[in-house]
């Protein structure tokens, strides 16, 4: 009789919704390990690249304007000056001068003044 691929071995079926219809199917590994989206937050400064903190220009409680230099991140042989994306106050500084930061680390948090 026919060999139906679906019934050959035990398959763990999942449900996928497309346009309100629930389909019985399986997921690929790539789909299961996909990155979830998170809304970018202006007040949180994450490292976009791993590197070393060369210099910090601000301290907690200090007011800053949009475009002010916050700190310098040395990465890929470049000194990256990180500037404030907004007008506000420095709420928290999470790193020290000379510290190595990895990618995606929360380095500084701002608040609305």
């Amino acid at each position, binding site marked *: 009789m026919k060999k*139906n691929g*679906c019934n050959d071995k035990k398959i763990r079926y999942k449900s996928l919704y497309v*346009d309100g219809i*629930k389909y*019985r199917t399986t997921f690929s590994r790539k789909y299961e390990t996909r990155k979830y989206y998170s809304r970018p937050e202006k007040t949180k400064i994450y490292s976009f690249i*791993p590197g070393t903190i060369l210099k910090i220009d601000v301290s907690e409680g200090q007011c800053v304007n949009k475009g002010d230099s916050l700190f310098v991140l040395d990465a890929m042989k470049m000194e990256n000056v990180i500037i404030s994306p907004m007008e506000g106050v420095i709420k928290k500084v999470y790193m020290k001068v000379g510290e190595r930061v990895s990618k995606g680390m929360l380095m500084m948090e701002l608040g609305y003044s």
Partner: protein
Amino acid sequence: MGLKRKILELHKKREEVLKGGGDKAIEKQAAMGKMTARERIISLCDPDSFHEYDLFVEHEARDFDMDKKILHGDGVIIGTGTIYGKPVCIFAQDFTVAGGSLGLMHARKITKIMDHALKMKVPLIGINDSGGARIQEGVNSLAGYGEIFFRNTLSSGVIPQISVILGPCAGGAVYSPALTDFVFVVDKISKMFITGPEVIRTVLGEEISMEDLGGARVHSEITGNAHFFSKSEIECFDQIKKLVSFIPRNNMGKAKKFAPKEPRPEYRISDIVPGDPKQPYDVRDVIRAIADDSDFFEIQELWAANIVIGFGRMNGDTIGFVANQPLVLAGVLDVDSSDKAARFIRYCNAFNIPIITLVDLPGYLPGIDQEHAGVIRHGAKVLYAYSEATVPKMTVILRKAYGGGYIAMSSRHLRADFVFAWPTAEIAVMGPEGAANIIFRKEIMSAEDPEKMRKQKVKEYKEKFANPYVAAARGYVDSVIEPEETRKLLLHAIELSVNKSVFLPQKKHGIPPF
């Protein structure tokens, strides 16, 4: 001094060079579980068919004491041979000689055989096993790579180009395989990346093994850079031979015709596809129920498995199959599956291989990651590839064909030559649930029992639109057929298309949404 002595001298010279990097290096190669370059060529070609060129080439480097070093054949073997009697040009990098590193003469040998392949219009097979650029030769080795890439591009779509990764292939070197048609990798042996684990560690501080970064599995399952995965070199060579049997020698001819064979009786086409469009099945079984001898040679089996591509035969002629796979991600189109299908369609078109498309998809994969990854531009590739393809295009709509997915999958509107639909086909602007919710929103919301009303409206919509007859009434579908008739009608369509000709507007080339 007689002829005999001269011949003996030749034998001695040959013997010396054929040792490659010497016994120690060969032992090391074996310890890594790898065959030598020469063993690989012998395994791949028909017995006694390989003829080597440029055996006595010597390297050019004079700096860094390189002039005192002898590198036999400069680390690469080139020549011609046959596979199933079909001539091919081959180069194989010899890791036992200076790590297969690429210098000026090494590159010149490769480009020589590439030029030869293009001139003679025969397939080119490149076996890559190299540590990369020969640093001592500086910019000359970069020039060598550039000359190879240029020829890969020039030959693209003219002769089949096959890359076999049987060792490291890193940095700029990986761009040659990337420019070729098919890339073969072997588990635990193939390694491909632009920047290796060492650089990633020092620059980014991220730790990853070579295998996890660019091993055979990664490229077969995650990146899609590889087309064929195997567990051993021998299995890999068998795959190459099988592929060669399916493709033509060049873009001016057709693939070799084989003796026609009926599909095997265990694949019963009427028993494979469930009537409920929400239930999965393996679409490869449908292909096997249609193709000669139920033989389907799948390409990129592990990557973007929600679409299936590969070769089979119909009445002995090679056919390219493209099919949505309801078994994985409900068979949706997404970034990866669009890339996979579009490239294959363009391959078939370039090499005169008719395309059979089996349609069963709910649409595009919803998701922020998909939208941000550019599913618009990637999805557009499928439309582009089908629209520009002038080879015979046969479409069979098995079940769902909703919305943009319907248009993309070789619809009449993109100039499919034959569009057949099974009675189970649902050709509609979207699935019944979604459509009913929009069209009858007011009635549903204002009903006493909205859920009951919704169900009733979905049922109404299903009866009216979830079928092949609305599309058939406009001629978008040529005929609604019984599953059992599929092979017969496809054979008829192929037969009818033998002299198909299409006139396209003149252009240098289009601008596909790469």
